[in-house]
């Protein structure tokens, strides 16, 4: 193409010719159409997700807040009762039991969830086939269904289960250990299952964080005479600190809202006498069924929200203070 021809195709050259500009008009229309699409498309993409979140999260949360101050049941709208549900809560023996159990769950499970997967991740990092096998093995429980987990552990722990049979055969115990019928042993068994289930999941998160630690730091530490333990404490732990805080937060929320593990080990009964009730199980017990007390269940949900929120705020404050 000659320079003259190139110049002739330029818009300004066409404009300069003084002829009408139908082509430019058409181009302008297309541009406007495209512009409108460009503006609308992102909103259309977001709209379905927004609607789902708005209806099933925002509206539901607002409705829960409203219901918490009513005596409504599933089939009856109920009336405003002020803080009566909250007053009843603190006289409800099962609420107090659930509060204690869920708090204990956080206190006992979270430290293990933060430390054990990190140790595990440190042990299985690397590219070898054996490491790959171990990573898969540790991650396996994460993909198991709650029903399968329940069946495995119930068969292991019941009075005639594998663990008791072995202990009795080896004459370590005379009577079966009541893993599934003693209030505290049942709770600790459920905690153990939670840790077993969560190890692989948090290990994968730690593996990603470990990959970001500069190898030269380990080399420098080794040159300074640091052994594996010292390297772990002085290099690895500071290197994954933000991940540790994330996992602490995630596992705190999960532990306080524990449901599956206790549910499957107790067949939904919350243990003998309901003494292994947790907050989520209590919400389910009160908030489902034809005679569901939706007002009361909402009040429990609100208390859970406040407690979990407070725990997270405290963790944030501690984190900031530590950073300072």
């Amino acid at each position: 193409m000659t320079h003259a021809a190139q110049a002739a195709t330029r818009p300004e050259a066409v404009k300069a010719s003084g002829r009408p500009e139908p082509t430019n008009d058409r181009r302008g229309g297309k541009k406007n159409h495209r512009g409108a699409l460009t503006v609308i498309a992102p909103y259309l993409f977001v709209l379905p997700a927004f609607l789902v979140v708005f209806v099933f999260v925002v509206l539901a949360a607002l409705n829960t807040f409203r219901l918490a101050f009513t005596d409504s049941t599933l089939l009856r709208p109920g009336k405003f009762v002020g803080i009566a549900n909250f007053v009843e809560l603190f006289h409800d023996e099962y609420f107090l039991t659930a509060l204690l159990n869920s708090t204990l769950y956080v206190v006992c499970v979270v430290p293990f969830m933060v430390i054990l997967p990190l140790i595990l991740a440190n042990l299985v990092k690397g590219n070898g086939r054996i490491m790959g096998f171990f990573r898969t093995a540790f991650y396996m429980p994460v993909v198991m269904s709650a029903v399968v987990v329940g069946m495995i552990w119930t068969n292991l722990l019941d009075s005639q289960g594998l663990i008791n049979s072995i202990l009795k055969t080896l004459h370590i115990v005379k009577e079966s250990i009541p893993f599934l019928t003693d209030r505290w042993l049942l709770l600790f068994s459920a905690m153990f299952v939670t840790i077993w289930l969560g190890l692989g999941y948090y290990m994968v998160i730690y593996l990603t964080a470990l990959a970001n630690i500069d190898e030269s730091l380990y080399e420098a530490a080794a040159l300074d005479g640091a052994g594996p333990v010292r390297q772990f404490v002085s290099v690895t732990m500071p290197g994954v600190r933000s991940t540790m805080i994330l996992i602490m937060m995630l596992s705190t929320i999960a532990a306080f809202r524990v449901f599956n593990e206790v549910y499957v080990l107790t067949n939904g009964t919350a243990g003998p006498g309901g003494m292994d009730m947790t907050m989520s199980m209590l919400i389910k017990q009160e908030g489902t069924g034809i005679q569901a007390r939706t007002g009361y269940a909402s009040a429990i949900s609100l208390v859970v929200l406040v407690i979990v929120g407070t725990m997270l705020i405290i963790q944030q404050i501690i984190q900031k203070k530590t950073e300072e």
Partner: protein
Amino acid sequence: MNTVKKIVAVAGAAAMLASVAACGSGSDTAGGDTKEISFQTWNLKNEKYTPYFEGLIKEYEKDHPDVKIKWMDQPSDGYEDKLSTQAASGELPDIVDGGASILYSLAKAGALLNLSKEVPDAEGDYYEGAWGGATMTGNGIEEGAYGFPWYVNDGPTYWNKSLMQQCGLDPNHVPTTWDEWFAAGKTITQNCDGIYLGTTMGYNAEDLVTAGATFMNKDHSKYTFNDEAGVEQLEKFVESYKEGAIPPEALDASWSQAGDLFQRGNLVAMAGSAYSAAGFKQNAPELYKNLTVGPRITNDGRSASVSYELLGISSQSKHPDEAIDFARFVTNAKNQVEFAKQASVFPSAKGGLEDAYYQDIDDSTLEGQALKITLEQVKTGYSSRPAEFTDANGYKYFQQQIALAMQGKQTAKEALDKTVQFANERLSK
């Protein structure tokens, strides 16, 4: 290319929106003058029962060309939750299948028709006990039947003969009263290790009522099972648990676990239904050979564990007359007997139990013996669990308190007193 991508994306977004919007859509009536009646059962759509229901519906539609029956079946897991969702959203099917406690909750919420008022002549079609089982009263419910009685269920006690012999019991003389039951528990714990008598321990209303306790007063305004007979009976269960006649897991046990223990040969006796015999034959043939049956344990010779399945009619039904007519068709004597034969249950419609099928039961097999014993129980028995004693209104709490009594954390009297207080408070709400 970009434009094409955008168009595809916009179309995709629109499709997602449409799918979200579609969640709320649905049609509940057939076109034209046809009246569509929705009929909901639970756990009955399977190879065994589907042909029966399809035949039943076909026959009815043939005689009623203006009516279309839409049969829906729900899984047993979470059936109550499903019903509650349907009732709360105003989409309760025209005809709903459920036990008395399920229908009680719906009736209390005004979701079911009072059939005593709608069709007063229906009462004469059913056995007195069955109609009584469907009748609800008190606590804000207008007195009347809130469901057409359908099939009736009960069952014998299955006994493992080998274990009985092994543990010092006479397999030819199975216990039938509570004294014999507790004595059998003692004998087993003295002679066998790791073998239990059963999982029965006062978790059900009949465990107390058959020993003389009165569960509720006549006008259904107060629970009374913490009377002397109730407390005494629970104390005997606690004693039996301490002796080791009841497995610790039974404190939490679901029905399937009790069945597992029985099939594993750790349990001498288990209460079951008439059709459990066929299940043992199929799933545990070795155990089946060692089984014998006896009646449910009771001091007065009457079973208190008879349960009635009912068909309730939605008060929101657009075609209540047709719904009532179809429900009466399903529950008439002829159709009930036909269903009962297939399901090893019993009819509640008058004349059903006089059918030739029940007059000549072959009791040379375990299944026949189980059926025969259950038939006698159904004829004279009753349901001891009041409809209002639902999971939420006391039944669950009752089991929890009994478990604590078993573990020695409270006395039998404390357990029953607390439960009565809890259930009475719920009753008044």
